């Protein structure tokens, strides 16, 4: 179980410098969540926390004996946890919200409402980005197919960037935008079961 005391011990194991240790912890936790998502484990955050708890339990031995990159130890624990997650998901009923879906006419109405909330949040969040980021995303997401490839190449040239660097810039702007939109949807009380329905 992660307490402030065990958290400090974990940080100390990750790195002697507390700030670097914090960055390493944040990266490991965030990456674990995403790995569990890609392994199709439903509650990825809970599984990532479970991995951290298991590592923390072993800290006294690790601090004394473990040699090597701590991130790789986390991975070993994560692999075992992922196997458990797969076993659980195949043997148990899937969790709601799909168990008792609302009637079709109510669902359509809710879907429209959610869709218009998403549109509103997207516009609102775009308006709140820095001007350069807003312009970048608008131009980056405008085209499809060959036009998209040409437009991205032209945009990179205009900004004096290699294509890879342009992609990184877009990714950073997207990360801010996505966080804003998810936050906005939560604030506006968007129905989670509709919001993430598969299309």
């Amino acid at each position, binding site marked *: 179980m992660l307490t402030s005391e065990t958290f400090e011990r974990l940080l100390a194991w990750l790195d002697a410098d507390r700030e670097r240790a914090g960055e390493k912890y944040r990266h490991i936790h965030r990456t674990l969540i995403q790995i569990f*998502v890609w392994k199709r484990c439903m509650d990825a955050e809970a599984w990532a926390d479970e991995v951290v708890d298991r590592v923390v339990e072993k800290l006294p031995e690790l601090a004394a004996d473990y040699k090597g990159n701590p991130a790789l130890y986390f991975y070993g624990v994560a692999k075992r946890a992922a196997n458990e997650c797969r076993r659980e998901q195949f043997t148990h009923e899937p969790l709601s919200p799909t168990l008792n879906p609302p009637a079709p006419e109510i669902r359509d109405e809710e879907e429209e409402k959610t869709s218009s909330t998403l549109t509103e949040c997207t516009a609102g969040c775009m308006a709140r980005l820095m001007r350069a980021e807003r312009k970048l995303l608008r131009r980056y997401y405008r085209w499809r197919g060959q036009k*998209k490839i040409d437009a991205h190449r032209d945009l990179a040239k205009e900004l004096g960037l290699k294509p890879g660097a342009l992609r990184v810039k877009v990714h950073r702007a997207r990360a801010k935008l*996505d966080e804003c939109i998810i936050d906005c949807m939560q604030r506006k009380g968007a129905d989670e079961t509709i919001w993430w329905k598969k299309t």
Partner: protein
Amino acid sequence: MEELDDEQRLIRRYLMGQLGPERERVEERMLADPDYFDRVLIVEEGLFEDFVFGDMSAPERESFNEHLLSSPRQVKKLEITKALKNYAGATRRPGAWWIGSLMSEHKLGAALALAALLLLGSFAAYRMLMRDPLETELARLNSRDAISAQPGPSVYAETLTASRFRGLGARNDGEKELTIPPGTEVVLLHLALSGDDSESYNVTLTRGAKEWPLHIEGVRPVSADGAKVLPVKIPSRALTAGPHELTLSGVALDGSLDENILSYTFRVAGDKK
């Protein structure tokens, strides 16, 4: 699909569930190397874009559905990518995105919807599309000239120390409570910079769960009693009772951004009126 290098192709196969034992090498590397993890996320973003823009073959779409849309978090990514595509496709001129989006779907329905929107009044749509007036006022109050002027009689000033540095530290530790006197027009917060020496700062004010965050760009630090502080002026009407947080991102001379360096939490007490 845009040209990919060998690494990107491998990552794409990983994400689409097409790698065998090599998966473990990719996953280990993601945990050990933050830059590599970012590159994986970028490839994933590209996959979402290809899916949304219809730039994928049928077998690829099937793989994508099976491997990348298996959780609420992932489907949110998809829905946001779609929303962004609609927004970008329709914003050929400022403020027109919603018109374009409607017209491209159902012409008659769009015409009726447009008429209804105009009848209901365009102020709400205008308000939504235009910059928040509070942000305009924040920009004006925190411009170079305004900051360097002496505070007026209706300004309430306080000093805050950072509660979190680069995301570390307890959020509510030593949270200051501000009692803003009635009649105050502007709250001037001096943010202690704890040794950070960025050229200027972008400031984000988060005001509880229900309000939009507000942003101020390019605020410059000043010296006070031998230490650097960041003076931030906020219209007092923006600070309703309850918890608030100011987050600073440092801006270097070359314009590069060092995000979320310092955070300051505070609480505004009761009713100012």
